[in-house]
C-alpha cells in the first residue's frame, strides 16, 4: 500500500499548494489601488448597485472573514458575480470552458501527430544531419511568438487562399464539422509550438529507451528494425509521452490567451483578456483560480502517472 501512502502525500501536498493559490487569487482583488467595485461600475454607478455588488462580493466584511468566506464559497462553486454584468462568475466560466478544452485537445492532437514521429525519427538518427534539422526546427518552434504565427496563418490560409475561416467557433458537440474547420488554424498555432517542446522531450525519451538492454537484445535477435522500433521502444516510451502530453496540456491552458484573442475563440483565455480590459476583478479572480486549479490537477495526474511508471520516484 506504499502507492496509496504516496498518492495521499501527493494529494495533501497539492491541497496545500491550492490553498496558496487561493491566497494569491484572493489578494488580487485587494491589491487594486482604488475601489474595485466603484471602478468596475463606472458610468452605471448608483448607490444601490454599488451596495449590492459590494455585499455580493463580500467586500464589506473584515479581511480574514472575507478570505474564509471566499474559500468556502469557492469550494462549493460560488465564485461571486461579475462586476460588469452581475452574472454569476461560475456560470460564465463553465460557459467558456468547453471552448478552451476543445482547443487544447486539438492542439495536443496536432502536437502529438508531429512530435511523436519527429522525435522518434530524430532519436533513431541521432548525431546525423536529420537529427540536427529536427533539433533546430524545435528551437524555431519554441522561439516563435504564437500570435505572430497566428496572424500569418490567418493571412495565408484564410484571407488569401480562403481554405479556412479566419476566426470564430462552432461547438464540437452540435457542429463537429464546423468545429473542425474553425479549430484547425488556432489549434495548429498552439499545436506547432507544443510540438516543438514535445519533440525534444520525446527524442530524449526514445534515446533513453533505445539504449536500454532489452532493445539491444531484440536487435541482436535479428528482428527487423521496424518491429524493434514499434514494439519495444514506443511501448516503453509511452509513459514519458503521456507525461509530456499532460505537462503540455497544462501549459497550453495558460498559454491560449493570446491565440484565443487573435482567432476570436470564445474560451477562458479570451474571457480573461476581456475581463482585464474591463477591470472586472471578480471575473479575473475566478478565471485565474479555475485555470490554476486545472493546472494543478493536471500536474498532479502527471506526477501520479510518472510515479506509477517509475518505482524509483515513488519511493523517494
Amino acid at each position, binding site marked *: 500500500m506504499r502507492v496509496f501512502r504516496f498518492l495521499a502525500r501527493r494529494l495533501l501536498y497539492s491541497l496545500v499548494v491550492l490553498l496558496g493559490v487561493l491566497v494569491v487569487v484572493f489578494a488580487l482583488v485587494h491589491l487594486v489601488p482604488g475601489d474595485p467595485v466603484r471602478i468596475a461600475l463606472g458610468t452605471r454607478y448608483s448607490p444601490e448597485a454599488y451596495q449590492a455588488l459590494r455585499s455580493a462580493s463580500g467586500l464589506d466584511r473584515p479581511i480574514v472573514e472575507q478570505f474564509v468566506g471566499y474559500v468556502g464559497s469557492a469550494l462549493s462553486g460560488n465564485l461571486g458575480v461579475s462586476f460588469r454584468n452581475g452574472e454569476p462568475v461560475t456560470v460564465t466560466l463553465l460557459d467558456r470552458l468547453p471552448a478552451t478544452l476543445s482547443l487544447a485537445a486539438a492542439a495536443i492532437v496536432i502536437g502529438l501527430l508531429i512530435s511523436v514521429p519527429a522525435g522518434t525519427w530524430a532519436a533513431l538518427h541521432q548525431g546525423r544531419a536529420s537529427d540536427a534539422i529536427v533539433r533546430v526546427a524545435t528551437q524555431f518552434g519554441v522561439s516563435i511568438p504564437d500570435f505572430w504565427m497566428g496572424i500569418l496563418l490567418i493571412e495565408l490560409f484564410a484571407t488569401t487562399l480562403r481554405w479556412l475561416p479566419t476566426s470564430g467557433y462552432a461547438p464540437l458537440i452540435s457542429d463537429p464539422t464546423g468545429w473542425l474547420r474553425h479549430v484547425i488554424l488556432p489549434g495548429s498555432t498552439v499545436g506547432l509550438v507544443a510540438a516543438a517542446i514535445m519533440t525534444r522531450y520525446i527524442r530524449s525519451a526514445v*534515446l*533513453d529507451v533505445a539504449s536500454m538492454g532489452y532493445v539491444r537484445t531484440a536487435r541482436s535477435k535479428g528482428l527487423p528494425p521496424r518491429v524493434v522500433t514499434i514494439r519495444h521502444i514506443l511501448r516503453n516510451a509511452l509513459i514519458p509521452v503521456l507525461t509530456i502530453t499532460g505537462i503540455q496540456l497544462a501549459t497550453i491552458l495558460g498559454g491560449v490567451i493570446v491565440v484565443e484573442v487573435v482567432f476570436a475563440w470564445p474560451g477562458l483565455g479570451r474571457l480573461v483578456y476581456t475581463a482585464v480590459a474591463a477591470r472586472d476583478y471578480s471575473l*479575473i479572480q475566478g478565471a485565474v483560480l479555475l485555470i490554476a486549479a486545472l493546472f494543478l490537477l493536471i500536474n498532479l495526474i502527471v506526477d501520479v502517472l510518472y510515479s506509477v511508471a517509475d518505482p524509483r520516484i515513488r519511493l523517494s
Partner: protein
Amino acid sequence: MTVDTYDRRASWRLALRNPLTLISAVILAVIVLAALTADRIAPYGVNKIDVPNALQPPSGAHLFGTDELGRDIFSRVLVGAHASLEVAAASVTFAFFVGVTLGVVAGYRGGWLDMVLMRVIDVMFAFPVLLLALAIVAVLSPGSTTTILAIGIVYTPIFARVARASTLSVRIEPFVAVSRTLGTGNVLILRRHILPNIASPVIVQTSLSLAFAILSEAALSFLGLGLQPPEPSWGRMLFDAQGFVHLAWWMSVFPGLAIFVTALAFNLLGDGVRDVLDPKQRTLLDARRKR
C-alpha cells in the same frame, strides 16, 4: 557535478565551437549593439508621423516600409529593440537576484525554511506564466514598470528551483562538510564552493529566461497591457499591424521577425552552453522549464 574555474572557461570556448551557438552569439551582439545605439542610428524619428507617406512598401528610403501613420518601421524596430531588451533584462535581473537568493538560502539552510520557501515557489509555479503576468498587470495598470515587475515575479520560481537544485548537489559534497567542521564561515563556503557551482546552470537559465521574457513582453504589449503607445514595442507594432496585414505585409513581418530572431538567438545560445555543460540534462525538470 562541480565545475571549477578552469573548466568553465574551457566550456565557453567549446560552446562557441558549435556553429549554431556562435551564430546566435554574434546575432545577439548585433541586436544588443543596435538597441544601445538605436537612438543614434535610427534614420527617422520613432514618432515622426508622415501621413501622406503611409503604408509604403520597403524601399531605399524606408528599409522596412512605413506604417499606417507614415512612420518608418525600421527605426521603430530599432528603438523597439531597446525597449524590449530593457524590459527583458530588467525583469530577468529581478528574477535572477530574487530567485537565486531564495534558492540558495533554501538549499543551503535546509530544514523548515527550505520547506516553506519551496511551497511558496510551488504556489507560484501553479500559475501559467502569461496568466499571472496578466493578472498582475490588471491590478497595477499597464506600463513598463508593471510589465517588468510582472515578468520578473513570474520568472523568479524557475531561478529559485535551478539555484536550489545546484546548491543541494554541492552541499552534500564532502569538502563542504569538511569546511564546516573546520569552522569556515558560511559566507566563505558560499563564495568559494556553492556560487561557482551554481553559476553554470543559472547562466544557462538566464539565457533561456531572456528568450521567454522577450516573448512574454511581446505578448503583453500585443494585448495592449504591456508597453503603452507611443513607446514603440515590437508586440504593440504587431497589434497595430493586424488591420493592415493584407494591405501592408511589412508591418507584420518585420516586428515579428525581430521578436523571433531575438528569442531564437537567446534560446540557441542557452542551449549551446547547456549542451557543453551537461548533455544528459533531458529530465522532467527540463521539460517543465520550457514555458
